[in-house]
């Protein structure tokens, strides 16, 4: 295992824990976007460009948009 793979795996593990332990949902949304980017890096390092394209398109484009709409509608009235 080369150093690149070790670093990317540890990055994915750390960001996965960061998604779970975020306090407010709006913070969690942006940590989730960077978790999607780290997953894309991991899939690319594992010689899987198809899967990396899929995860990039879904995890950073489509899903955060929908989650943002839901957060906007379910926010408490300020």
């Amino acid at each position, binding site marked *: 295992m080369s150093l690149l793979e070790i670093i990317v795996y540890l990055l994915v593990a750390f960001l996965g824990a960061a998604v779970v332990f975020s306090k407010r949902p709006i913070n969690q949304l942006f940590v989730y976007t960077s978790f999607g980017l780290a997953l894309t890096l991991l899939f690319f390092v594992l010689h899987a460009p*198809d899967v990396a394209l899929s995860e990039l*398109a879904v995890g950073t484009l489509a899903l955060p*948009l929908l989650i943002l709409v839901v957060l906007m509608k379910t926010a408490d009235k300020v």
Partner: protein
Amino acid sequence: MTLRGRTILYVCSAVLAFAVMMYGATGLPPFGSFSGAYTDLVLQITTAERHVYNVPTAINFDIRGFDTLGEEFIFFTSVAGVLFILSAVRGKTQTHPEPMESEPGIVRTGALRWFPTGLTAFIAAMAMDLAAHGQLTPGGGFQGGAVFGSALACVFLGVGMHAFLQTARKDLFDQFEALGAFAFGAVGVSAMWVTGYFLKNVLPLGQTGATVSGGTIYLINIAVFIEIASGFTVLTAVFLNQTRQTQELEE
């Protein structure tokens, strides 16, 4: 059960499950040295038999095409479920005519208006390029459709909600999605009508490396792209429509 009791119970069982899973993982091949008989066979014969360079695309749409048909119907059912749930509330706002820029105080001019609108065309073109060359380069119907689904959201960013809802019309893209799902099944059934095998590759295979190659792989690729792109556009339109109803109900 209280939160503390739930946490303690979960941590105990998670440690046990983790230990059992790691013990099971010792039976797996060590990282970086996988070899299987089916893998070697598929890699040897796919390009020769199907005239397609992108092996996962050939597996998705031809060798294991039946599994992809099932996944597409999961997609279709989920989008139908979202439409069913979110259209259960029809406010009085549906027939309410509103001006073009319905957000008060936000008037976009200049680069803020035209740059996202130009970006829409660029993203849509790139998505169609990803999908059309699915059998030559990494890509295909699934990736191109997911990218296209967010292309029309740039219209919302640039111009406003009303223009976005006129562009991404729910009923039009709904019909496109149904067309894509139907086309996949129709290709399979017509193959069955010709040769007796469902989803058999019956069209001429073409030359490896040409844009149109692979026979029915190309047709199914286009059908999947139409369905996934329309499905994601419908999802985006329905979700953004929900915010509009809130704003108008509050006024």
